[in-house]
């Protein structure tokens, strides 16, 4: 009778041998794009792809993939030798995309939006230096995009391009419900006091309506709170200017000083929570599932939001009229400012290092130049409904709903918000970028959603506003070096 069986010792021996063999194979020399030095301009004698080539191009966000597909169809009609495979990622699939790239996948060009990548001194080499590839349109920008990033970081660049005015967060509301409530904020809200009064009245009205869930439906989004709202709310106050905010980032003032501009943001949301203006436990509510869905369904009156839901609501078949007004009416009699994120000089579309060595590089370059040409900028601006910081050959009649309802009137003589103007200067975050340590969490720790815990603790009373600002100051001290410069 055969009794020989595999013992545990044999099994471990076989596993170890196999593992050793596998490690030797895995440690073999491989070339990955990310491990190479700063990429140079493409060599003239690199092999060129012949016949039709397919280029993988990333859409800016999933919401606009459909519109960008139409734009790229135009390119394909003009360039029959190139097929564009358009794809999109979101916050949840970004990690999988990066793992795929680490495994050797190289799309023609990508967008940083969902990957939360910002080019700085530690990672700029992962992107091609766009000043070296024969890009045709630098002089079309309304600011010096070719040198802005390079001058700030004192490194060769730029590494990314964006054509748009930064995202603008405004009050956006269901005009039909607002009319039912007997409120007209576009007419009546001119100061911060008016604004708080309007919130009180609207909240009271909504509570009395059985089919209205919230007047101000607010939910949590780490990027929105970390990158947008922290800098937006202080603009309503005379001591909350963008320059004073930047002073904190550059070490000239402290985040936790008694006159810190950021105090206003925490105090406002704390008040909003206490007065019932925002839903209970706002920090646990899903941005899309709880907030946007309710607004689009006509069950909430208004939100503080960017351009996206204006389009989403229309696309979802919402029948109500949408309206809105600038976010931060002045509290101290000063100029009414509408904050916009600054021109994005360290993020958005980029070409990953290594792409310039692909056989289809000439086709990629052609597509890249086409993508930023004046004709296409017009299409992209209409697709996203955002203002391009780009000199077009003909005036642009932008049809984007947020633009038409609010933005076009800001600072426009005779417009509804003629006395308001944009605040689009570089934020403290951008100015302090060259001084941020590698792997640092930053002041708000929004990328790991650490700001959610802080807001939760402030709004639930576990910590005070001062303690929240102390956390910010501590984070700044741990994240930046060499400041004040």
């Amino acid at each position, binding site marked *: 009778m055969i009794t020989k069986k595999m013992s545990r010792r044999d099994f471990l021996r076989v596993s170890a041998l196999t593992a050793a063999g596998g*490690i030797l194979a895995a440690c073999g020399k491989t070339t990955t794009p990310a491990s190479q030095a700063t990429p140079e301009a493409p060599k003239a004698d690199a092999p060129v792809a012949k016949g039709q080539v397919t280029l993988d191009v990333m859409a800016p966000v999933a919401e606009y993939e459909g519109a960008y597909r139409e734009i790229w169809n135009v390119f394909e009609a003009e360039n029959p030798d190139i097929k564009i495979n358009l794809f999109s990622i979101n916050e949840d699939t970004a990690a999988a995309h990066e793992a795929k790239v680490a495994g050797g996948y190289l799309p023609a060009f990508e967008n940083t939006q969902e990957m939360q990548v910002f080019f700085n001194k530690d990672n700029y080499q992962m992107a091609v230096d766009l000043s070296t590839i024969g890009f045709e349109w630098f002089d079309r920008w309304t600011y010096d995009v070719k040198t802005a990033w390079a001058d700030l970081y004192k490194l060769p660049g730029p590494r990314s391009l964006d054509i748009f005015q930064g995202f603008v967060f405004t009050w956006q509301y269901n005009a039909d419900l607002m009319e039912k409530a007997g409120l007209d904020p576009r007419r009546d809200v001119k100061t911060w006091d008016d604004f708080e009064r309007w919130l009180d009245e609207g909240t009271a009205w909504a509570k009395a309506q059985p089919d209205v869930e919230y007047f101000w439906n607010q939910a949590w989004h780490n990027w929105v709170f970390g990158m947008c709202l922290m800098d937006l709310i202080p603009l309503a106050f005379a001591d909350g200017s963008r320059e004073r905010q930047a002073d904190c980032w550059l070490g000239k003032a402290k985040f936790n000083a008694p006159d810190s501009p950021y105090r206003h943001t925490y105090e406002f949301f704390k008040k909003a929570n206490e007065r019932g203006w925002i839903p209970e436990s706002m920090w646990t509510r899903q941005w899309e599932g709880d907030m946007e869905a309710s607004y689009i369904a006509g069950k909430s009156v208004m939100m503080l939001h960017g351009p996206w839901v204006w389009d989403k609501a229309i696309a979802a078949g919402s029948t109500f009229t949408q309206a809105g007004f600038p976010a931060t009416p002045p509290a101290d009699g000063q100029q009414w400012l509408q904050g916009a994120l600054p021109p994005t000089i360290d993020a958005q579309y980029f070409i990953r290092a290594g792409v310039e060595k692909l056989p289809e590089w000439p086709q990629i370059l052609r597509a890249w130049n086409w993508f930023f040409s004046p004709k296409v900028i017009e299409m992209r601006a209409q697709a996203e409904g955002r203002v391009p910081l780009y000199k077009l050959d003909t005036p642009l009649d932008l049809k984007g709903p947020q633009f038409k309802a609010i933005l076009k009137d800001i600072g426009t003589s005779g417009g509804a918000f003629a006395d308001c103007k944009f605040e689009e200067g570089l934020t403290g975050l951008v100015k302090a970028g060259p001084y941020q340590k590698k792997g640092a969490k930053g002041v708000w720790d929004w990328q790991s959603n650490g700001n959610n815990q802080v807001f939760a603790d402030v709004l639930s009373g576990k910590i005070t506003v001062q303690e929240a600002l102390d956390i910010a100051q501590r984070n700044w001290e741990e994240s930046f070096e060499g400041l004040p410069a």
Partner: protein
Amino acid sequence: MKKCKRLSKCQKRLVLTQYGFILPQLILFVGLTIVPFFVAIPILFTDMSRFNDPQINPVGFRNFTALFTDPSVQRDYLPALQRTVVFVVLNYSTVYIFGLSLALLMYEVGFRGGFFTIVYLPLMVSGLAVGYMAVMLFAKATGTANLLLLQLGLIRKAFDIYSPQGTAFILPLLVGWRYAGYNMAIFLSGLLSISEETIEAAVVDGANYLQRLWRIYFPQMIPSFIIATTMCLIGSFAVFDELVAMGALYVNPEAKLLSILFFTYGFQVERLALGMTLAVETFLPLVVLGIALQRLQRHLQY
């Protein structure tokens, strides 16, 4: 004189057949678990921030000491560790509440086949789906579970799954329910290996059921308890999908256990090497504990 252990042709064929059976799983296990583990070891000594980091610098043992010297790491790691330990303890209790109870039910009452399948079915559902189910069941305003418990008067206020108490209470119940069949199988195998003579002798001696459980069943089930403990430890530290569904990455900081922290460090805050090192530092004591449990099993074997 040393005996020569030459295998006959037949024995060699049998051994090769055995290796052949385990080869696919062996390749997957070695290729996807063992090899990546060793290939990744050099990364632990660098400041690699993400997979595609173009500037990787050696940092010596800094990542290993960060847990003890870097306040920002401690502020992230220690609360996550505390939540994980609480979860492990509560999850361990559900192993017995669900697994042992169901195994005893099957053993004593004699349910078979279909009952086993029904109890085992939740394990076929993905952790993500189970997490979303929990979020829906315990939604404050519309969750069925909350509405039912309120209706029955068992609770006065709806459970908030995003509160510390809500997450701490619901998560182990959820995971315990999902793994009930798995744990039941472990305990049932232990029960089936109990010598029937010992049970009959105890009955003859007048032992009641609880006495038989404590003095006859459990001592002979020690190996099963040890296996269940080891599996529970592994599963508790590895829980991830359920946490994501419960909002751990965005709206529920209370669900930020260690597995979420490692993911966050690797994919969100550009601390890949540091996150991997923290994972290794967490893993090593668990290996020691696993080996200790195994030795305890041999020592306590009835």
